[in-house]
């Protein structure tokens, strides 16, 4: 196998992994801090994709339409996420995990129908600006030029979240809440407020990921049900609540999938589930999680 093709396959895996990271990082953050297993996370990601399409169609005539639509979609989805937290999620903090799962699953179904009502069942397609319609050649390997943007966004979010958690006051509070929300509360920090903003931040990243995804292929109903399973695999592998874990988990899933397509296509998905199951058995708290949270 030529190096160029292996490199091309590696880049596909990297992009796939970083797309998964964008979806899974919000999911992991919300679970890590709030202990809410948000099954509707991928549906909010899909809403982000549809919103991005709407903004893009309003500015379609301009080459910058896509670049403006993506952050707008992230903000609009975050606003929707904020409403969800205040109206619904706030009421289920103290519920059992299975109850939370059922409620967030119901939310996913309701939001799915909401998408159908607002945008209809037709697939939505964003026409990319001409600058990213042609392939780019790196070391002789053809790469979708938009994927460079996806990779940059993925790493930017990873670095941004790391900086936020490591160097800001609110980041420290969030990290502390991952380990002991009672202690954080005892210090007089308003936990409900922190929860609301963490949830909003998680959904902002989901909306951003949806916006980025909208220019990769057509935006269609049901996309969310596929990606949510893989996002869960990522957080299980990396460890719930761990940013580094989510990044590494995403890259493992992306690259394993990509190279399996090349060498063992029938087993591409199976391999990911085998790894997930193995991690759950050997190290239930994930590669970078801590037994305390497990």
């Amino acid at each position, binding site marked *: 196998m030529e190096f160029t093709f292996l490199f091309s396959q590696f880049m596909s895996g990297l992009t796939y992994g970083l797309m998964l990271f964008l979806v899974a990082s919000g999911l992991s953050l919300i679970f890590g801090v709030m202990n809410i297993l948000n099954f509707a996370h991928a549906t909010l990601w899909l809403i982000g994709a549809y919103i991005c399409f709407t903004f893009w169609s309003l500015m379609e005539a301009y080459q910058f339409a896509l670049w403006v639509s993506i952050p707008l979609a992230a903000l609009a989805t975050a606003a929707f996420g904020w409403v969800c937290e205040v109206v619904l999620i706030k009421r289920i903090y103290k519920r059992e995990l299975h109850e939370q799962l059922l409620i967030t699953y119901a939310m996913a179904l309701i939001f799915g129908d909401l998408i159908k009502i607002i945008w209809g069942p037709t697939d939505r*397609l964003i026409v990319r600006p001409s600058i990213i319609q042609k392939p780019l050649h790196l070391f002789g390997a053809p790469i979708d030029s938009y994927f460079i943007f996806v990779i940059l966004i993925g790493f930017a979010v990873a670095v941004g979240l790391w900086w936020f958690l490591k160097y800001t006051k609110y980041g420290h509070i969030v990290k502390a809440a991952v380990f002991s929300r009672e202690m954080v509360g005892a210090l007089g920090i308003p936990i409900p407020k922190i929860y609301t903003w963490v949830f909003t931040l998680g959904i902002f990243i989901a909306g951003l990921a949806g916006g980025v995804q909208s220019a*990769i292929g057509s935006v269609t109903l049901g996309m969310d049900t596929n990606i949510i399973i893989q996002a869960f695999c990522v957080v299980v592998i990396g460890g719930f609540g761990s940013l580094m874990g989510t990044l590494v988990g995403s890259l493992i899933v992306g690259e394993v999938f990509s190279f399996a*397509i090349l060498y063992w296509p029938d087993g591409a998905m199976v391999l990911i589930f085998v790894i997930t199951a193995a991690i759950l058995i050997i190290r239930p708290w994930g590669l970078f999680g801590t037994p305390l949270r497990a």
Partner: protein
Amino acid sequence: MKFRKMFFGIFVLLMAGFFCVSAVQAAEPYNLGVALGFTGTGTLYSKDQMEGIQVAVDEINAKGGFMGKYPVKVFQQDTQTKPDVGVRTVKDLILRDKVRAVINDYSSAVAVAVKPICREYKVIHIAAISNSENITKINYSPYTFQVVPNSYMQAKAASYAVAQLAKKKGWKEYVTLASDYEWGRSTQEEVVTDLKRVAPFLKVKKELWPKLGETQFASFVTSIMSMKPDFVYACLASKDNVTFTEQAKPYGFFDKIPYVGSMQSVTELITEAKTMPRGLVAISRAPFFAHMDVPMMANFVKNYRAKYKGKYPSDWAVMGYDAVYALKQGVEKAGSIDNDKVKDAMKGLSVDLTRGKLQFRPIDNQLRCSSYVGIVRDDPKYPFPILAELIEIKAADSERPEAEIVAARQAEKK
């Protein structure tokens, strides 16, 4: 007295004139029902089909209607592309509007649901664009006719055309890319088996199975490109096919590897003229440009474009037009608008259509029409790409053997 006689004479003349005019006005119309999915997933195709039907009806009525004396009156209904609504609307058309024939639908599910209703009320039923072969293969109704190449014919035609292209271009190896669910698996298996039969020199290099609803095809794209097959045969569900196409385009995939397996009617060729990758090997049902040498097609295209502001007719418009003309020739052969006579006349009838002289196959009332496979390419004659290097696969090379139909019907009875 003279005045009274004259007055009486004028009165008699006026009355005679009135009755004559009334008699002409009262010429019995031929009520034609059109039940299509004007809303729902079939909107675009149904709208085009209706336009084709309307052009045919206008032409026929300009010459006095069917047999020159039965003007065609169209009753249009929306099935919403839903079987239950289709059944309800067709019943309305039959019972309220007294239609003698119904043209329906975009969705095969609707056509299958409507078939027994038409049979019960002895109304001619023409499936003009819905192409499940089960519309005519099993649960046979002598009142139901199909003027579109059915699903079996289209699948066989694709294999036949690929074999021809492979011989011509020296293709040896291919990769299959099929959605990982029942339809994708069974279609892929059928294609591979069929290609083994018609082109035994072709070898499958790799079988790829993206899951249904896959959103990230990049790994598949780069993987296929690294394998350098002579072509890819895709059996992807429609949405997945769009996603794959969109994700493969930025890699220049379609410039490098022939991609076989998608259906591109004139509707897609026009609406996606700017974005559709050139080089796709696509199948089509009734592209007008395949038969511009047939005077009836040339005339239809001219009249259609005149009526619809220069728009070119899609496959669906062509088949809608052909459905009306097939019915017209059935009525003429029967010498009557009586449905039983028309249905008997249409059985095995050879009809002159835009796609040439074609025959309804007696065993299943399926029109022995062609399928078309070509390579998406720009043509200076049209403002949209067409299917170039077009291969017309005749019914003789693509239809299901009669013995298999008999066997399927016997199995159905058990």
